[in-house]
């Protein structure tokens, strides 16, 4: 049955409308969980607030479990769902640059929009920087186009790379995540900071 758009059950315009609604849900949940505050976001790197860790991994695991269960009952065709492609060099380089941006700015693009919409001025400047960074990339594109497109590996999944079934990968991720949750709770007790 799903994905509804991929199987032609909903038109493109309905898809856009639902995108808007899903976005509302996304923004609502992010803001409710505290992702509109750069101090909470950066907290995971210093131990005093591990909300990022908890929300992120819980969401990823819920998503994994949900999608696999749906596909088990044939409610979604995972062949039609978008899997982001792996370009080894640019993913790694991009990840490093983004990590630096994260710890400096304290936001990621999604959360910066949330924060900006509730009035955080530093988030608005972050968004400005975001646009600038994209513009720089776009203008200098020929310089790094080769690097950008190097090492295309298709769309491997982690289960394919490790050679184990999807279900086992999910279980492994759950174990790792639970371990991190416990470490997170310990860290919050050990490194408390006041809220500003």
């Amino acid at each position, binding site marked *: 049955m799903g*994905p509804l*758009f*991929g199987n*032609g059950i909903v038109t493109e315009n309905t898809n856009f409308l639902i995108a808007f609604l899903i976005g509302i849900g996304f923004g609502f949940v992010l803001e409710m969980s505290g992702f509109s505050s750069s101090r909470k976001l950066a907290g995971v790197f210093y131990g005093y607030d591990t909300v990022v860790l*908890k929300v992120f991994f*819980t969401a990823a*695991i819920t998503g994994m*479990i949900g999608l*696999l*269960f749906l*596909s*088990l009952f*044939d409610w979604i*065709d*995972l*062949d*039609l*769902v*978008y*899997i*982001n492609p792996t370009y080894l060099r640019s993913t790694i380089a991009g990840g490093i640059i983004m990590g630096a941006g994260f710890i400096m700015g304290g936001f990621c693009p999604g959360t910066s929009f949330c924060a900006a919409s509730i009035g955080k001025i530093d988030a608005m400047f972050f968004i400005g920087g975001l646009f600038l960074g994209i513009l720089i990339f776009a203008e200098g594109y020929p310089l790094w186009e080769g690097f950008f497109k190097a090492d295309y590996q298709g769309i491997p999944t982690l*289960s394919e790379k490790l050679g184990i*079934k*999807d*279900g*086992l990968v*999910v*279980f492994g991720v*759950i*174990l790792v*995540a*639970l371990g991190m*949750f*416990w470490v997170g*709770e310990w860290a919050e007790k050990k490194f408390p900071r006041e809220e500003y």
Partner: protein
Amino acid sequence: MGRKEIPKRRILNYINYKKMKPRHYVAIVFLTLGLVMAAIPQNTTHPYKLSPEALLEQVNSGMQYFSPEQIADMIISKDPSLLLIDVRAQNEYEEFHLPGAINIPLSDLLSEDWREYLDQDVRQNVFYSNSTVKANEAWMITMQLGYKNNYVLQGGLNYWVESIMNPEAPPTTSPNEEIAKYNFRKGAGMQLGGGAAVSSESQPITSPSLPPITPKPKKKRVQGGC
């Protein structure tokens, strides 16, 4: 004399609800679901389109066959719903092929280029080869893929040449219908070139009376961005 109550030993007694934090609940739920996930087999979303029993039934019924007479009739009457598919190699096709046939060598059967010919519901595709071996192989593969409207020429080209191109005259004492069949075959054979090689430039039969084949939308991954 007060009797001390021995608390019943239940698992729930060991769980002190006041001390349970959300992450404990989360952990329990995730671990349970995770164990279930780890146990399910991979690839349960790609069942065969046709169960082995159903396929055997189809094979036994012989319903995939078109006789040479039927095909000859359709060619002569320019039936637009017919598409002959030659599954032999390209050089064999170029040497001789039936009128209006296209060439999909068996080795290329699964390539994307041919999918819209094979997976559609407007025409009747009839596979043929020299005997019926390759044609049946093509048929079985497309059956397993769930494609409809694919058939096989009974007896292949060998039988075709024998029966249509050079029909054997039955003895005059045969029943009427044998003689009628022979006459039909002879007539068809003459119409179709009677044994001589057919020009190798024929194109697939197109006819304005058929609705255009809208290829079944190829199941494509949805495009995503960042």
